């Protein structure tokens, strides 16, 4: 294996290839910074660009885009509290408070370093376990996913923050909203009011951008309207050079969180269909649980940034495990990569390793190289973004509104999505002002739909026979974990 990997490095370390990786990472970061555009959109629009490239260059380029796109989302979340995706919302929880203390650069460094660490960890996982994993992945069916999602709900309810009651309300509101659209099982309409646009349900991207990013932007603008620029504003904009340094030793002090998050992210990434957001929040929740001072989370604890970014970047590499082992995309980004593989004559699936071994190892090598490139480009980027932090909020936030509108329109070209986004910005604004967690609403929406589909698939599959659970060790383990968390939460009051 090591020998093959070295051959891979040999093939991947050409000047042209490095240039494509660098271009990919840079483009990915720039696209990811725009609220509403993440690695999925970046990949979707850049796949056609690669039609006429050499296979390895094309795939290396797209790997770079995927990595850059995932980490770019942290920038607006930290600087402007305007996360465009659910996972970036977890970064904003601690990243933005840190930025308000004048340590925006430090927050971005934490994000970038954690991102690259998580990424590298999961790339290594990918290289080591891609083949044997196929066996485990096939054990996961609807029943097992139902148990995993129950576990996720239990863990995430702890994120509700200062008011668990309001947090839970927001989660169930999200669950209710997720049921709009065609029924996932029998395809009858549910609360679609005759709108074809609603058949697929409310658009997640529009809700996330509206309720998370735009609501926060408008809230800040209204704050400026009432109170003008505050002393905190000026201090935050000035920044503090000394406080923004991040020595390696300080960063390495978070090694436990880093490892746990990278591990969680890799596991979630390996299971098809769970996705980046879930990994980010699971990891954030786990870090908060493990911390000796959970109350410091949400107020600028770097550990929150580390946990989120390491986990969501770890998904990126691990997502290719099912892709390479089984030909099953781990998420939409991986599905787009599969499409690109196929265009370049590589058929993803169980035969990929044997048929295209050389290319795959060159891909592995490119992924590892891309991490180094990512670190370098990201560091330069932070200096640039730091200038953005110095622009007064009253100038930059209106521009973000326009970016949100463009961002939500680009992937689907739908006026309807813009309308949903603006409406949910209003909902988010009210929720923030009255202490309901917007993040919980989005999580409820995201997981609610997945949970309903899995549960009802399982009911059909086992003909509503509950004893089927007893025959699935994986489901039993996750149900036990769920019970454990709930019992412990009750004991603590």
């Amino acid at each position, binding site marked *: 294996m090591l020998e093959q990997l070295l051959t891979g490095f040999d093939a991947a370390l050409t000047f042209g290839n490095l240039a494509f990786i660098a271009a990919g990472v840079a483009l990915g970061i720039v696209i990811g910074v725009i609220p509403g555009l993440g690695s999925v959109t970046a990949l979707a629009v850049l796949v056609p660009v690669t039609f006429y490239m050499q296979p390895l260059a094309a795939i290396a380029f797209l790997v770079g885009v995927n990595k850059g796109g995932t980490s770019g989302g942290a920038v607006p979340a930290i600087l402007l509290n305007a996360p465009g995706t659910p996972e970036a919302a977890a970064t904003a929880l601690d990243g933005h408070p840190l930025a308000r203390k004048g340590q925006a650069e430090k927050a971005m460094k934490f994000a970038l370093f954690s991102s690259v660490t998580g990424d590298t960890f999961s790339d290594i996982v990918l290289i080591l376990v891609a083949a044997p994993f196929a066996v485990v992945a096939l054990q996961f069916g609807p029943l097992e996913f139902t148990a995993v999602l129950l576990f996720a709900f239990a863990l995430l309810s702890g994120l509700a923050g200062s008011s668990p009651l309001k947090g839970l309300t927001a989660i169930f509101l999200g*669950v*209710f909203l997720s*049921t709009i659209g065609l029924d996932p099982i029998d395809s009858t309409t549910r609360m679609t009011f005759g709108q074809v646009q609603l058949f697929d349900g409310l658009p997640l991207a529009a809700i996330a951008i509206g309720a998370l990013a735009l609501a926060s932007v408008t809230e800040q603008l209204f704050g*400026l*309207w009432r109170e003008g620029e505050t002393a905190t504003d000026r201090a935050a904009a000035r920044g503090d050079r000394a406080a923004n340094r991040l020595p390696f030793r300080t960063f390495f002090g978070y090694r436990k969180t880093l490892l746990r998050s990278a591990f969680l992210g890799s596991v979630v990434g390996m299971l098809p269909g769970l996705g980046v957001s879930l990994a980010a929040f699971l990891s954030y929740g786990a870090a908060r649980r493990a911390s000796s001072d959970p109350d410091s989370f949400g107020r600028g604890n770097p550990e929150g940034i580390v946990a989120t970014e390491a986990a969501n970047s770890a998904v990126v590499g691990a997502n290719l495990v099912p892709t390479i082992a089984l030909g099953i995309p781990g998420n939409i980004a991986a599905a787009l990569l599969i499409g690109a593989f196929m265009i370049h004559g590589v058929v993803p699936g169980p035969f990929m390793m044997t048929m295209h071994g050389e290319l795959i190892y060159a891909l592995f090598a490119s992924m590892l190289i891309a991490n180094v490139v990512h670190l370098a480009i990201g560091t330069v980027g932070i200096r640039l973004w730091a200038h953005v932090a110095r622009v007064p909020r009253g100038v930059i936030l209106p521009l973000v509104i326009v970016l949100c509108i*463009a961002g939500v329109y680009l992937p689907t070209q739908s006026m309807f999505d813009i309308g949903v986004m603006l409406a949910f*910005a209003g909902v988010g604004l*009210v929720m923030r002002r009255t202490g309901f*967690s917007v993040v919980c609403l989005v999580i409820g929406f995201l997981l609610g739909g997945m949970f309903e589909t899995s549960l009802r698939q399982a009911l*059909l599959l086992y003909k509503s026979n509950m004893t089927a659970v007893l025959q699935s060790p994986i489901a039993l383990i996750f149900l036990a974990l769920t019970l454990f968390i709930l019992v412990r939460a009750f004991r603590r009051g």
Partner: protein
Amino acid sequence: MTPADAGGETGPAGTTPATDIAAGVLLAILALAALFWIVPAHTETAVGDYDVSPAFFPRLGAGLVLVLAFTLVATGTRRHLAGHRDGRPGRRVLAELLIWSAAATATVIGLQVIGFIATSALVIAGWMLLAGERRWLLIGAAAVAFPLVVDTAAWVFFTVDLP
């Protein structure tokens, strides 16, 4: 200090009991409407052989919101009776919501009638003024240049024509 200044998601302090009660009552009304009117009228309620009905999850979601809303009203009332008046008032959100609704409606209409560039220019100028920006040259430059840049970038990189 605004909640945004405090950072985090909802800010550290809770809201006043009156705000909680109002929010609870509003949520309860919405949940009741969903349970007894919207869901039955717009969702298939027949049950398959081994499946729950399509209306099961909407009802579950709305039902749980209803229960939690009642709890919220109850705890709010208890705090109120106990004489607590602390926390952030939620009243001023009403004015903000009104302004936002008007702005959002105008934006949607603007996008359909006068297009992305003109609407964006107005959006940028309007919100900058609201935020207290008074450097006219800066406002003008941003409102003209930025939409043009975004529109061009969308076309060049994504071949998407913004509305």
